């Protein structure tokens, strides 16, 4: 079978080659394009939605007239006919997508910026908006900051979606007219996310949040994709810090000043040279939180989280291990769902990268089990403070689960589980349905295999920073304590194994930030080894 490559591009974007067979129809090409644009298109569009346009070479003096290719046209024949001698880069076929996927009434009716909402609807929805509610205020101070930042840094509010989807949502050009709509709509900055806010902040931490339907208010046409350079400024804005675009002292978030300040975004993740990674922006050491003094010496770009990688294929595992080593965080591995649950139970993990198809216990089952255990143990960031709104539900669940919460299910909640673990599913499939299944099982996010390092890094940073923020005091203490007493760690870590039964799970848990744990607990929690096989790669 003969293959050849043809140029395609999205409007205004760089062209790329896709491989087709000689006898492929346009319809087949659409499939190939979805694969190539696995993220920007593949996650929310089906092949038949794709419209391909061809711009025939103009005769001298004639105007170019583009036309839409029919699905049954022979791709290669058409190209040969239109472009005798071969298709040049700038003759790339243009990929169009329907303007609107799901008709949703705009909460604001027809406003002048409607067109951008339409575009918004066409954006990939994968991890988010429909599943998770906008982030509740982590603390009043933080929320306030984010409101202030509306004007001066409204680009940055997009950042979480960058991290989540790996894409920079298209920005209006600075000074562009569309910008006005950000100002007009006095929406809180975090509403701008396309993707989920950290679900760690929701309680209960199960798939039950799926029903939350958040209007997809945000917008932005995809025609400005490449004008965007920023990465990583999550919706939580924090006090002044350096911004990438030189916007000086905008109250932007320093949380995830990722290390790619100058990388143009790519709609499908491409490989990145390691050098880019090493160019850490100076702002990085301020990343943990507003008040972390730089003297803590946080010199890595990823907070000191502990990651559990669950993957049964040792080739894949090997690469993921190499990836995580690069990030210099602590990590451990498991090769099946059962092992994953057991390791998680030992405590101390902030992030789980979970392969979905696993032997013995699948990733989905393991995820459900972890979420169940979190539920019966009342692990939730706001399970204390949100008792007013959540109490009836939680109590109901509790009474129902009280007999379930057997001795064997009990976890050392107070010391080892500050917040629900973040579970990022590793899926081999581009199918939406698989993702939905993963999210429904309680995964927070997913990465498509083969896992791309850039995305991997973003996910770990993004969620890691979120976890770090939740357990901010924990980090703080840990940092101090670890530096002073690192030799003691192994001992205290053992001490955490004795679990005390947790009875008043619903009412006692407070947001971690308001309840600094004891230093010994911290050292055990954060620097102690979580399981027998846990390896520390933080040094």
């Amino acid at each position, binding site marked *: 079978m003969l*293959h050849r490559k043809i140029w395609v591009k999205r409007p205004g974007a760089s062209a790329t080659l896709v491989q087709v067979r000689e006898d492929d129809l346009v319809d087949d090409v659409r499939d190939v394009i979805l694969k190539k644009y696995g993220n920007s298109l593949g996650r929310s569009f089906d092949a038949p939605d794709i419209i391909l346009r061809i711009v025939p070479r103009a005769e001298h003096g004639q105007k170019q007239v583009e036309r839409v290719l029919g699905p049954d046209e022979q791709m290669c024949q058409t190209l040969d006919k239109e472009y005798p001698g071969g298709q040049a880069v700038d003759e790339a076929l243009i990929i169009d997508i329907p303007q609107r996927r799901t008709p949703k009434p705009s909460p604001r009716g027809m406003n002048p910026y409607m067109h951008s909402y339409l575009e918004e609807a066409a954006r990939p929805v994968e991890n988010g908006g429909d599943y998770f509610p906008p982030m509740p205020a982590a603390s009043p101070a933080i929320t306030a900051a984010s409101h202030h930042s509306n004007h001066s840094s409204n680009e940055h509010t997009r950042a979480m979606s960058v991290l989540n989807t790996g894409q920079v949502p298209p920005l209006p050009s600075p000074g562009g007219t569309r910008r006005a709509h950000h100002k007009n709509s006095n929406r809180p900055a975090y509403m701008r996310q396309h993707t989920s806010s950290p679900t760690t902040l929701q309680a209960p931490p199960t798939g039950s949040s799926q029903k939350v339907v958040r209007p997809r208010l945000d917008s932005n046409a995809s025609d400005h994709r490449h004008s965007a350079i920023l990465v990583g400024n999550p919706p939580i804005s924090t006090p002044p810090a350096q911004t990438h675009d030189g916007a000086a002292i905008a109250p932007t978030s320093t949380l995830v000043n990722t290390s790619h300040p100058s990388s143009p975004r790519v709609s499908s993740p491409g490989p990145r040279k390691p050098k880019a990674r090493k160019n850490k922006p100076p702002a990085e050491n301020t990343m943990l939180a507003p008040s972390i003094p730089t003297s803590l010496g946080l010199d890595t770009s990823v907070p000191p989280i502990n990651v559990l990688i669950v993957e049964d*294929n040792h080739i894949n595992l*090997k690469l993921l291990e190499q990836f995580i080593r690069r990030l210099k965080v602590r990590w451990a591995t498991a090769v099946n769902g059962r092992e994953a649950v057991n390791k998680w139970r030992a405590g101390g993990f902030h992030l789980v990268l979970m392969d979905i198809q696993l032997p013995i216990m699948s990733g989905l089952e393991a995820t459900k089990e972890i979420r169940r255990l979190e539920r019966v143990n009342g692990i939730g960031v706001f399970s204390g403070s949100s008792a007013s709104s959540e109490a009836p539900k939680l109590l109901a669940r509790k009474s129902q689960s009280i007999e379930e919460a057997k001795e064997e299910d009990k976890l050392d909640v107070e010391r080892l589980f500050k917040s629900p673990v973040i579970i990022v599913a590793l899926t*081999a499939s581009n199918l939406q349905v698989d993702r939905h299944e993963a999210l429904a099982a309680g995964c927070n996010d997913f990465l498509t295999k*083969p896992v*791309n390092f850039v995305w991997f890094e973003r996910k770990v940073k993004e969620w890691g920073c979120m976890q770090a923020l939740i357990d901010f005091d924990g980090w703080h203490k840990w940092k101090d304590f670890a530096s002073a007493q690192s030799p003691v760690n192994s001992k205290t870590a053992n001490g955490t194994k004795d679990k005390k039964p947790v009875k008043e799970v619903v009412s006692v848990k407070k947001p971690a930030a308001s309840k600094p744990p004891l230093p010994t607990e911290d050292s055990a929690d954060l620097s102690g080894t979580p399981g027998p096989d846990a390896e520390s790669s933080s040094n």
Partner: protein
Amino acid sequence: MADAKSEGSTGLPDPSGEIVDQATFSQILEMDEDEDEREFSKSIVYDFFEQARSTFDKMDKALKEKDLAQLSQLGHFLKGSSATLGLTKVKDSCEKIQHFGARKDETGTQDEPDDSKSLNKSGHSVGQARHEFEEAENLLKKFYHDNE
């Protein structure tokens, strides 16, 4: 046009990208500490050779035993690692094995009620995958200057 595909056509085992996907493989190469030794990528690639061979053997066995479920699982398994290395063709064939083994058509969308057909098709795909694997193996061995 700065295209990710065209920029690094040197220093990769398969500049055409047909057998070894450049983007995927180059990120593995980037994990190498030393570009001459290429210790990490070489080890992962050679581990894969081993894994693929043993998986193909298991597939043969499953074919003999007409164990479609096992075939499907093996197909999925090898699909994962071949995808990780960017061995696109092998991956695609493994995916077919996975689908055939699951009593589906090759895209995994339609049910295939006839087990002997499924078995037949799986057998064919296993052969194809093996062939594609060997093709990739040769390229990669050349890349690592291994002329055994």
